[in-house]
């Protein structure tokens, strides 16, 4: 088990190194960053000084080595615009994004699990049909549009909730609902099919024939096995959630990592973009390692080798 965790962490680190590579070259795709970021009034001499200051005059490989050795110590350079360490800006915003993603996941799971389980037990009923329809619409809807519609309804019409910012505690309701709906839609369909598969198994029939009531069969026998695919997809869906946060945070002016990235891309602040990309990836990788470890807790049959 310990060895498995170690292997997964090493794999995660390798992945992260490749990501750092991608992030590094991505921000240099459009050629010389100085030509784009420097004020138009700068002459060639001043630009050259900027290049030396930021280290863009060195060969790419050397730049990468400098970038990665500093990055592991948490130094991503100084943000061009705010003149503060990029790392500091990212850490500041990371909490808001995690909070949003966490609340959205809770909403998603607490809607999806009951909906999916009931659907699977009452297969082809009106309830099943209705929840499948809702789930399809939920997956087809752009989440940021749902957010905009909620603003129209709850902020403009009813004046109940703040349309943007994070000052008021109630401000998290709309952005997290916006993101939670999409997740609930996807996970409820998955829960349904995972449950259907398990409910056909012999041991479930045995459990029923022993005279156990539905609740016991569902929660003690079926659910545990259905949870494994649900957890896998939940982990991958978190990535989708983080991705959606970029747009949803912009809609609601939520001070998270996604909006920081959009703002930094807007002003070509490469240091922040690189750091934000790495932290998105780090969040995703760590969550999926935790989920891999959780498998073993839920299903002792799973052996790692």
């Amino acid at each position, binding site marked *: 088990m310990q060895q498995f965790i170690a292997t997964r962490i090493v794999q995660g680190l390798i992945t992260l190194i*490749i990501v750092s590579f*991608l992030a590094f070259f991505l921000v240099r795709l459009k050629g010389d960053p100085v030509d784009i970021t420097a004020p138009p009034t700068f002459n060639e001499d001043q630009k050259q000084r900027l290049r030396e200051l930021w280290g863009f005059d060195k060969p790419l490989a050397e730049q990468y080595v400098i970038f990665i050795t500093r990055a592991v110590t948490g130094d991503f350079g100084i943000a061009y615009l705010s003149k503060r360490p990029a790392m500091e800006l990212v850490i500041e915003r990371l909490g808001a994004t995690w909070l949003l993603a966490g609340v959205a996941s809770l909403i998603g799971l607490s809607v999806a699990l009951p909906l999916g389980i009931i659907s699977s037990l009452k297969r082809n009923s009106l309830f099943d049909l209705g929840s499948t329809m809702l789930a399809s619409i939920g997956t087809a809807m752009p989440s940021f549009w749902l957010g*905009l519609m909620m*603003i*129209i309804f709850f902020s403009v019409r009813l004046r109940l909730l703040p349309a943007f910012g994070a000052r008021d505690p109630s401000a998290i309701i709309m952005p997290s609902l916006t993101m939670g709906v999409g997740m609930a839609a996807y996970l409820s369909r998955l829960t349904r099919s995972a449950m259907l598969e398990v409910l056909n198994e012999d041991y479930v029939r045995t459990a029923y024939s022993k005279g156990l009531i539905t609740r016991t069969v569902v929660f003690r026998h079926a659910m545990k096995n259905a949870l494994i695919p649900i957890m896998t997809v939940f982990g991958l869906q978190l990535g989708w959630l983080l991705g959606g946060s*970029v747009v949803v945070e912009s809609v609601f002016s939520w001070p998270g990592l996604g909006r920081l990235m959009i703002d930094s891309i807007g002003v070509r602040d490469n240091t922040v*973009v690189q750091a934000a990309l790495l932290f998105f990836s780090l969040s*995703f990788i760590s969550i999926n390692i935790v989920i891999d470890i959780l498998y073993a807790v839920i299903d002792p049959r799973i052996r790692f080798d």
Partner: protein
Amino acid sequence: MSTGPGQPAAAAQSEEDVATLVTGHSRQPSLLSLLRRSPIGLIGTGIISLVIVLAVISPLIVPHDPIRGNLRTRYKPPGFIGDDGAFHLLGTDQLGRDIFSRILVGSRVSVLVGVVAVMIAGTIGVLYGLTSGFLGGRVDGFMMRICDAMLSIPFVIRVVAISGIVGPGLVTLILILGLSGWVTYARVIRGEVLKARENDYVLAAWSIGQRPLWVVLHHILPNVIASAIVLAALQVGITMLAESSLSFLGLGVKPPTVTWGIQLADGKSVINSAWWMTAYPGIAITITVLGVVFLGDWLRDSLDPNVRGRD
């Protein structure tokens, strides 16, 4: 019920199937006959056909110029009739342009981006997955690590970052979505290849001395292509949603090109007063993607042997 190709009798759920079995024309019921039985498939195909037809003929049927508006009739609510008798079914926007006409024309970008980007992503992904799965070993391990790295940056963030840096434009947008979307195919296809290459007939092909390329193209590819088609159908929806997100953020296609995402971005700044500018383009996206989702679900249920019959 299991409906593997080895037990055609089990697949016979209707008289049509029995008829096909008896006449022996086809062991598998044709897609068309399956479609007739599936409401989801029918609705999906209906929506998609409608959207494609509208996208193609929209310039001919729009009631108003989608790009040039009438500044005297700005922000007019749905159902507005101007002094000159111009009727605006879904209202007008900040430049007095007819929203209904703009939605009709906006379908073109969605369809174009959805289809072309998915074709690019699918081709790259299938080739990558075939190579990785077929070569196996260290090469496979390395190629899959690259996929892991790509996947660890969520799709939308990937495309937002790239298009933010490369800049907007229709062709760039299609390329970006295509070049970032292949990873999903690569993973799935590689898994399918690993399964397919264990088949006895692949071993047989090897043993009679067929060349590797021939084995891949003639014995392995036909086995994995169904999964690729199903995945492609599901990805069209995701790609369309990504396009609207990017255009909404101002990173996708630029005006005067009309897209649903740009319409939503226009609507956001006047969300307090002109709700119709936001509501209708979003409904257009939702219905279109819903059609794609239905079609994808139906294709998965009827084409993909792994999922078929379970649900």
